[in-house]
């Protein structure tokens, strides 16, 4: 094969990857760094005389062992998953009818209400945690995972309601009206027509609610104290950052293992997610 043909073939086969490669590097490098730091010995990690991108000494499982046996990581992970699942359920149960009402029904104040709902999402948690502390205390949930289950919808609900409003608007009114002509009540039309049509949107909202919850830190720090009630994001930093000593290997192992459930959720619902995002963008 002459050089020109070879060059053409390279261009054809690998050309599309060229514009993609800077993006891939930026997105994947943190994961790569996480993986090698998880298995690097401390001495190797701090050694500036060798290239930091690979192992000089044999990899070790010490950091993973410290994470799994020296901390309550499995319990924190269980807490995070459980809280995430409950928050997704609460969010969807409340956001779906709210989104439907705001998108479909005409009543005084609907527009300002939907704008206000979105604006409430913009209030930072660093301002909200003190008033919310009083609510949590009033309910007797301080230092209980329930505190997070009831507090997290305060930021997932506005966002997901807003998101779902867009999806509800994509469903032609005529379909719903046809169902009502055929004898459905408004609720039946909502349940049997709207919900099945906007399933990709519901999945998208669910994924957003789950990831927002899973990564949250400030409220977990404020409302949880006992080790057994901590979430991953809070537990890992509280037990593996000690004064000015950072257990980098175990911190990275925590981030790596903690990322697995999110990756699984995304992998299994990727098609719906993409469909949801693109559908939600159009009316």
């Amino acid at each position, binding site marked *: 094969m002459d050089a020109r043909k070879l060059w053409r073939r390279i261009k054809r086969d690998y050309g599309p990857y060229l514009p993609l490669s800077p993006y891939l590097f930026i997105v994947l490098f943190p994961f790569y760094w996480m993986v090698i730091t998880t298995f690097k010995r*401390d001495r190797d990690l701090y050694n500036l005389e060798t290239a930091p991108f690979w192992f000089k000494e044999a990899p070790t499982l010490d950091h993973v062992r410290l994470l799994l046996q020296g901390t309550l990581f499995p319990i924190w992970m269980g807490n995070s998953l*459980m809280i995430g699942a409950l928050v997704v359920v609460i969010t969807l149960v409340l956001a779906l009818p709210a989104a439907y009402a705001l998108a479909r029904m005409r009543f005084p104040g609907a527009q300002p209400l939907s704008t206000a709902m979105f604006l409430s999402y913009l209030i930072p948690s660093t301002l909200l945690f*003190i008033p919310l502390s009083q609510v949590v205390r009033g309910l007797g949930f301080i230092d209980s995972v329930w505190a997070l289950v009831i507090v997290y919808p305060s930021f997932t609900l506005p966002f997901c309601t807003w998101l779902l409003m867009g999806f509800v608007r994509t469903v032609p009114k005529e379909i719903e009206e046809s169902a009502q002509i055929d004898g459905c009540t408004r609720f039946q039309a909502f349940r049997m027509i709207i919900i099945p049509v906007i399933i990709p949107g519901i999945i998208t909202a669910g994924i957003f609610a789950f990831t927002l919850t899973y990564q949250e830190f400030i409220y977990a*720090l404020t409302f949880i104290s006992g080790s057994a009630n901590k979430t991953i994001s809070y537990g890992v930093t509280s037990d593996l950052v000690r004064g*000015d000593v950072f257990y980098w290997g175990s911190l990275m192992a925590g981030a790596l293992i903690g990322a697995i459930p999110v990756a699984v959720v995304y992998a299994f619902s990727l098609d719906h997610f993409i469909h949801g995002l693109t559908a939600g963008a159009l009316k």
Partner: protein
Amino acid sequence: MSRLSRRQFLGTAAGAAGVSAFPHVWIRPAWAQTKEVRVLAWTHFVPAYDKWFDAFADQWSTKSGVKVIIDHIPHLQIPAKIAAEVATQSGHDIVQLVGTGTEKWASALLDVQDAADRIGKKYGGWTPLADNYCKVRTDGKFHAIPDFFIDFPGLYRKDLWTEIGMPNGPDSWDELHKGGAKLKAKGFPVGIGLAHHDDSRASWRAIMWSFGGSEVAKDGKTITYNSKEIREALKFQKALYKDCMTPEVLAWDDASNNRFLASGRGSWIHNPISAYRTIEGSNKELADKIFVSLSPKGPAIRRSFANCRAYGVTKFSKNADGAKAFLEALADVYRDAAKASTGYNMPFLNNYAKPPFPIISEDPKLKPLEQDADYHFTTGYPGPLTPAADEVYQQFVMVDALAQFCTDKMDLEQTVKWAEEKIKAIYAKFA
């Protein structure tokens, strides 16, 4: 075998998560139990110390019948946690104060003078540093029980300093400057963070005080930043930065100087012994070359910064007597605590502040630390640790001024004027 569909998988996973959640969800918060004392403490840099502390709490619980639960969280998050608890008037019975001073939280903490007196009487009285940290000036009483302070000595590479004819490391800031410049030329710079983190605030203050400068006078009110001593200190600090360090220190955090020393590139850092202890665990060969010296002395005096720890009993505690009793018992076992901390915790009681110290006096490398109680002071020095002094510290006024001077963004006079105005504005707020 039938294949698991995506829908089935998600359904099963959600179901499993729900079922596994139940035992967690229905556990009653320990808060609701009676006859208990709950303690908010930092995660000590020595994991073994936390284990010792938890075990001591269990032992004391068995003996006293009062259940003690210790919640460990990172020290940087403790102020936010206390703020939330004060706002809701509920939470821990005992909270650890981490460097911010007792006066800041005084309205939320009980007067514990009785317990402080009992402990002081038993162990030869409290050191002036403990007194300064825990006594609230409005009523002149202890509102927290001092626990320990964290010292800032010098950690140096003996092999490198021996090569330049200074085998015992630098004893003065001037020696550090001269030796550090030589070692930087050989590829082994000195490292003191110059950014928004605890170590920066501590180390550069040590130099300022050693030059006879301070932000405020002994009365805790008169601003003294605009002085000849401060100008001399600033000029020296800039020279130290330019000649002995690399600009990376402008982006450091508290862990950076530990990493710097652990990398084998650093020749000297100003840090508690945590940096040395960590290297001991991961790189014995390098640890053997690292030695500890007194924090260097300046042209005026030898001064270093003490980061203090104390325990306050909250006004919303349901078991204040139990909390005080626990803190008194903790003071009784100070030597065990110091041992468990591998020599990191420094004493606040006069009888404990005399050699022999646990661990420190037995290890020739750490022996210089025996003198640390004599020359370590805290925020607001030479005055008291007032909320105004604390705010100047928290807002990094001194570090920001110095960073702008070192990076040539301001000249000497502009730097002094800028910082003085900031300090005056903060003190005016509290006047």
